[in-house]
């Protein structure tokens, strides 16, 4: 018996990914494992919407989540802050539009569960860290700065850092743009500064190859980033990570 935590970031409209998540939760619950929490983050907060409906011919995934949660007694937690960015006021009607059966929660709660969980399963699906490894939580950033996932991931990293959990932030070629001043639109610099100034976070990593392919040098980046060899990066992600969270 192990305990699991699920992180769902798929939009409810993505029926295929939604079914995949439900299928896996069901399987794990049927095997007798504990499900500590299902946390809806990013576009996944839409599952907690009171007015959510599904197209004709598609299964009602919200209903399926509610039934599973009831059957196996686990909480369905919606990130309240990201929820408000998707039009979800995380209280039951009439005060808000949270669906009955979902709870409003936060990153604090999620991170405290995550650090005690044996396994994290993330949807869209992602390769997982070594089970039970006593390492850090790896944040693997893969999207360019223009994607909301960049901000969602950074907020989660900030929360983890504020809880003083050991963390690594790893950037691939595309994601390195998150560390560079954009031509237009908001940048992530103030959040990055907060990580560095207030939480004295230094665990930024990439590879020399990624930096070169992105056409950047270390001087272009807002924060000091350590360069790893591809082998060292693999080790950081596989054996040294308790969990990997991908954004």
């Amino acid at each position: 018996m192990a305990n699991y935590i699920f992180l769902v970031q798929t939009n409810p409209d993505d029926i295929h990914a939604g079914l995949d998540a439900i299928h896996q939760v069901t399987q794990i619950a049927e095997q007798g494992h504990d499900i500590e929490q299902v946390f809806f983050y990013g576009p996944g907060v839409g599952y907690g919407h009171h007015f959510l409906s599904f197209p004709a011919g598609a299964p009602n995934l919200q209903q399926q989540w509610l039934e599973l949660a009831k059957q196996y007694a686990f909480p369905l937690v919606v990130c309240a802050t990201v929820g408000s960015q998707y039009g979800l006021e995380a209280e039951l009607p009439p005060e808000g539009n949270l669906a009955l059966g979902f709870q409003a929660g936060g990153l604090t709660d999620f991170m405290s569960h995550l650090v005690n969980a044996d396994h994290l399963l993330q949807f869209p699906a992602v390769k997982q860290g070594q089970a039970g490894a006593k390492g850090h939580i790896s944040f693997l950033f893969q999207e360019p700065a223009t994607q909301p996932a960049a901000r969602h991931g950074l907020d989660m990293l900030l929360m983890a850092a504020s809880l003083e959990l050991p963390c690594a932030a790893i950037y691939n070629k595309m994601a390195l743009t998150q560390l560079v001043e954009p031509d237009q639109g908001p940048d992530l610099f103030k959040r990055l500064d907060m990580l560095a100034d207030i939480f004295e976070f230094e665990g930024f990593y990439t590879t020399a190859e990624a930096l070169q392919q992105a056409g950047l040098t270390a001087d272009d980046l807002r924060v000091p980033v350590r360069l790893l060899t591809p082998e060292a990066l693999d080790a950081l992600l596989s054996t040294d990570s308790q969990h990997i969270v991908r954004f």
Partner: protein
Amino acid sequence: MFLFQGEEYPTDKHDYLLHFEQWSEPLAEYIASLENITLTPEHWEVVHFVRNFYQEYDTSPAMRVLVKAIGQRLGKEKGNSRYLYSLFPKGPAKQATRIAGLPKPAKCI
């Protein structure tokens, strides 16, 4: 909306000041009175601290961040929740940011 000295100050849906730049110390004293707080020099220190924090990081500091940042810059004897709750009994982050004319800190952080 705050109605203070015959002026109207728009607020957001949480009843926090909508426009950061409309803030003034007299307005802060008025908002504090709504929170049943009389501002002492110790309160002012925190109020100015969160305003500066907001200008620097574009974020209303939530409790954990506030404790950490105050501890770092004003010293450990002030960067702890006991001290901050003694000043702002209903939640230091919530009350200090409201008095400082900032948006409400994120719920989930």
